[in-house]
């Protein structure tokens, strides 16, 4: 391989950064997909693959995907929670891969809540 220049170093750094950001907790948006039995049964995996595909396609470094258990509203699965840094979390229900792509470009990237699929803003009070 040819000699590296400082630009090459920067390129390598940027391309690997996505992975390392994940380990440092530095992100702008977090998409949490509810993967309880109910979620999985109603197609959460397909929704999740869609998100991963979007992140990869757009080469995003500041969006992370997490999974969690059942959110309690099994009849409306698949569900996700979108959390932009500094904003209240938003829950979306009855998702399909197509709806997911819409939410991804509108909300996750654009910062605009997609009201027609949203269930609620905010989360339960916890003690």
């Amino acid at each position, binding site marked *: *391989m040819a000699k*590296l220049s400082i630009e090459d*170093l920067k390129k390598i750094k940027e391309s690997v950064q996505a992975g390392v950001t994940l380990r440092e907790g530095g992100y702008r948006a977090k998409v949490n997909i509810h993967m309880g039995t109910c979620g999985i049964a109603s197609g959460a995996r397909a929704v999740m693959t869609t998100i*991963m595909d979007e992140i990869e396609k757009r080469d995003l470094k500041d969006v992370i995907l997490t999974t969690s258990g059942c959110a309690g509203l099994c009849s409306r699965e698949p569900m996700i929670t979108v959390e932009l840094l500094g904003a209240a979390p938003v829950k979306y229900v009855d998702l399909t891969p197509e709806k997911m792509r819409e939410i991804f470009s509108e909300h996750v990237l654009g910062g605009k809540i997609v009201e027609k699929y949203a269930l609620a803003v905010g989360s339960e009070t916890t003690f």
Partner: protein
Amino acid sequence: MAMKVFRSHLLICAGTACVSCGAFKVRERLEKELKDRGLAEEVKVVITGCNGFCAEGPIIVVYPEGIFYGKLKPEDMPLLVEEHILKGRPVPKLFYKEPIKKEIVPLLKDIPFFGLQVLRVLRNRGLIDPENIDEYIAKDGYAALHKAITQMTPEQIIAEMKESGLRGRGGAGFPTGDKWEEARRFKRLPKYVICNGDEGDPGAFMDRSILEADPHAVLEGMAICAKAIDSNEGYLYVRAEYPLAIKRLNQAIEQARSYGLLGKDIFGTGFDFDAFVYPGAGAFVCGESTALMFSLEGKRGMPRAKPPRSAEAGLWGQPTVLNNVETFANVPQILLKGATWFNSLGTEKSKGTKVFSLAGSINNIGLVEVPMGITLRSIVYDIGEGIKDKKKFKAAQLGGPSGGFVPENLLDTPVDYESLEATGAIMGSGGIVICDESTCMVDSARFFTNFCVEESCGKCVPCRIGLMVMLRKLEDIGEGKGQEGDVEFMEDLGQHIVRMSHCGLGQSAPNPILSTIRHFRDEYDEHIREKRCRSLVCTHLIRFQVNEEKCKMCGLCLKACPVSAITWEKKQPAKIIKDLCTKCKSCIRVCKFWAIE
């Protein structure tokens, strides 16, 4: 170029400690479980260097959540994958349990062991794959080298190092900038850069962990040093007992060469530097700088008298800078973030952080990095979370065979070079071995002296013969043959050895004896006058009889005795039949009430 995206990263610690408790078996099973569930494309398994929390190994940390799983077995993997990775439900059963309150702590950052540390040298530990140079570059790797070569003059590099106040982390604490400046002053070429990774102290494993977790940081530090002193060649002297460190270093060197970060014409600036690994054959004395250089030259590893210092005439008689692994690992960040960033932490004369390995009778055995100036008490009780099995603290042994013992009443000593020396111990390379009440100080002194006797190179008389005489005295005392005046004799002889030995090994070898006499004189007196060992370690001084007042009549000793030399009946104190007893001390180890004397 776009990297493949993974939704989750599973970081498996593959430091030597975790590997020896089965990390690779865990990894194998983990990868199989992920594959079987079709998750291999979504989840990335990363092998990292030592995570530091060796007591909890094998370890997996799951990101982005940052959840810490410890003491894993291959059989745990199906549950972990099914629950956490597939369904997103972390598995409390496998969480870390805090040893005192027995509370579970899921997140790595909330575990006190990690929370109180300041990671600079170890900033990449458990976070990057040490076998992949790209991950190091992603964490600003080699940016400092670029800065040093293209934007700084050698004088500026040295000035920055001097201002930072970094001192040698191998033990003696010589200011790094001064050392480099001296080597720069001598114009004879070629010059050499040597990294000392011999790390021979029993209970010390800082350098090994740094080399295993972040080999490129050390290489980068060496290359920067080479630029500062006009050297083109470096050697890493790593003891052969560290196969994993040597493997990762060689891999790192290969990768750096293929990127042109080592070798000819680095960054196209005309600066050449290459590094080579030299496995040491395991002699303790080869950690001494002049002996190490002789060993590198293929000669017998024996120290020589100084001056000339290595900066003037080191390897093959040429100007040489020799620094410890941890010292070099500090360098890139000093250049990148500046001297003032570095010396913002620490005490007046000791700046930055220090890596310590915690071993012995302490709950959290492992590798920790703390700011200079933290108290030993904080290391032992806050980070180490106290003494194992609820025993009482007796002493902290610092600095290996050249170091000394710090007793309970000096635990509030801040960690810096001068304060530690005042207690009779030394900073050393950073090994801390914790002794509890079941450690006999006379016996510990004997252990370390025996080590020094075996490792003495034999070149000078005070060390070769003086230490042998000291060892015989200690053995006599342990066997009940101690006499009045022995302690004074050892103090006197010890001072002679300190003053008259040739090298650092001999000059510090009496430290374990001198510091135990200083802080635990009463134990010596008990051994000599009362023929008693309160910690029940010195077999000759144990009577092997049951103290009926202390005996709680539990019968544990009866079960433990391998030769049926104990009789016991319910609600009766146990009895030891002296004719059958082989003095194996099995009963002493199980008795919780110190009832056997």
